[in-house]
């Protein structure tokens, strides 16, 4: 077990630099010194421990980290840049696994270094994002978190980018009714396509933005929202 720490500003800078060095192949992994040297990080005031376990899905990681970090007293515990960036460095092996040639290819920094100012970036963080989604939606969060640790997926991009939608329980419940397959524990086949096919996830996001002009989506229930959807979505409800 490891005591959770938080980066200081120097630690954040060094983590950023580390990502560059990994990107150009000068480094293979996050150095242990970056994680535990007091020049870069410090333990949390409230001592918490985590295990470097392997998670098969983002949902598993969210449940585990939500349980542990949930006990923190801080109001912004799920949005704390220093903590979540340190955790990303700690779990970096899983967040940025090596490809077939053994090379790691880090994606944008905000996937590892939490940008807590921009809602659409918060959800792209590969650890804080899943935990916040799970905190809002519990079981319904599986639709967004069924995939491996290093992927965020189209459902996050289409529905989590705006806080009004991302935190709306009725919207997320309806998205589950439409697109989640409880047998395969994955989204239904064809739900997420890059084209605007009838009843697809992208159409759902578009229809929501149209409905918002007429309806206060915070006031409607999941059943009411289903009734407001055009007929093209019916076949997804039946599947």
């Amino acid at each position, binding site marked *: 077990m490891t005591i959770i720490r938080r980066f200081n500003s120097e630690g954040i800078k060094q983590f950023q630099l580390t990502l560059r060095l990994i990107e150009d192949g000068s480094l293979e992994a996050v150095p242990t010194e970056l994680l535990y040297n007091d020049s870069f990080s410090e333990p949390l005031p409230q001592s918490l421990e985590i295990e470097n376990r392997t998670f098969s899905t983002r949902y598993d990681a969210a449940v585990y980290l939500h349980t542990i970090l949930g006990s923190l007293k801080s109001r912004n515990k799920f949005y704390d840049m220093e903590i979540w960036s340190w955790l990303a460095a700690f779990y970096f092996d899983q967040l940025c696994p090596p490809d077939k040639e053994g090379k790691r290819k880090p994606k944008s920094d*905000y996937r590892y270094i939490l940008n807590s*100012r*921009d*809602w659409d970036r918060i959800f792209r963080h590969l650890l804080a994002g899943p935990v916040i989604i799970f905190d809002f939606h519990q079981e319904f969060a599986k639709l967004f978190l069924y995939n491996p640790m290093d992927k965020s997926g189209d459902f996050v991009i289409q529905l989590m980018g705006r*806080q009004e939608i991302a935190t709306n329980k009725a919207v997320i419940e309806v998205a589950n009714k439409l697109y989640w397959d409880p047998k395969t524990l994955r989204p239904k086949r064809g739900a997420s396509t890059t084209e605007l096919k009838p009843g697809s996830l992208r159409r759902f996001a578009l229809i929501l933005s149209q409905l918002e002009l*007429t309806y206060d989506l*915070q006031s*409607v229930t999941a059943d*009411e929202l289903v009734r407001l959807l055009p007929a093209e979505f019916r076949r997804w409800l039946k599947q």
Partner: protein
Amino acid sequence: MIRKFNYTGRKKIPRSNVLVYFEDTTKVPHSFNAEINLESLKLPGNAEVWMEAYDTSSYMRFFFGQVADIHPPASDQRRLTDIHSTDAVRFRIKVIDNSEKHGRILAWANGIATKGTQPETSQKNPLLPVIYRDLEQEIWRLEYHPEGPFLAINQQLLDFGIRELVRTDNYFISMVYPSVIREILLRIFLIEGVFETEGDSWENDWLKFATQIPGTGDLPEPEEDNAGKIQNMDDFIEWIDNEALPAFCKKFEFRDKFQQELFGGIGE
């Protein structure tokens, strides 16, 4: 000219009917209150009134009673606890029918800025709120939201004093703000298709601001073809280059200020 149609039957609440202010800025997170006047809109008395606070990344919602009995929640329940930047916070008011057609928006207003700390000490709404974001290697950029443009500054420079620089540094101000004004005015004409000062939109507010600068000539008259497309866009571009920009730079004496910075306060 692009005209906007309202197919929803939703009424527009004039922003001047909703006065939002912070109660006490010494306490963080701030608590807000609002004075709301809906009398002229003839809305059903039992419709619900909701205030929503938001910035680019966060959102909160507050129940303000019903049209016939508007009352704010208790002060401690009006704290903007989930709003990340109270500098750039905006408010939206929605009047919602929850009796007949459940959830239908009957009236609303968007992009309402606070009027300072008390209603009587009202300040002008900032036309260009400053927000801080991760812009990687960019220093600044303009972001356009439904309520208008925001000047986004790279938050990685916060530790190096960028917040103060944006407000007071003559180098920064004299080099960045004229470009900002040019880009916003170009956007208003070329993308938003707005050519008049009358109205309640952010584009109208910006055009009012630009035309009120001493030395700026009147806006050109838009000439439309049969399809409503503007034929004299060049006149508007020229108006930016020859009227609005020079007047703006003259008003704030950018060259003089820049020169002072260059020569340590000794002008020619």
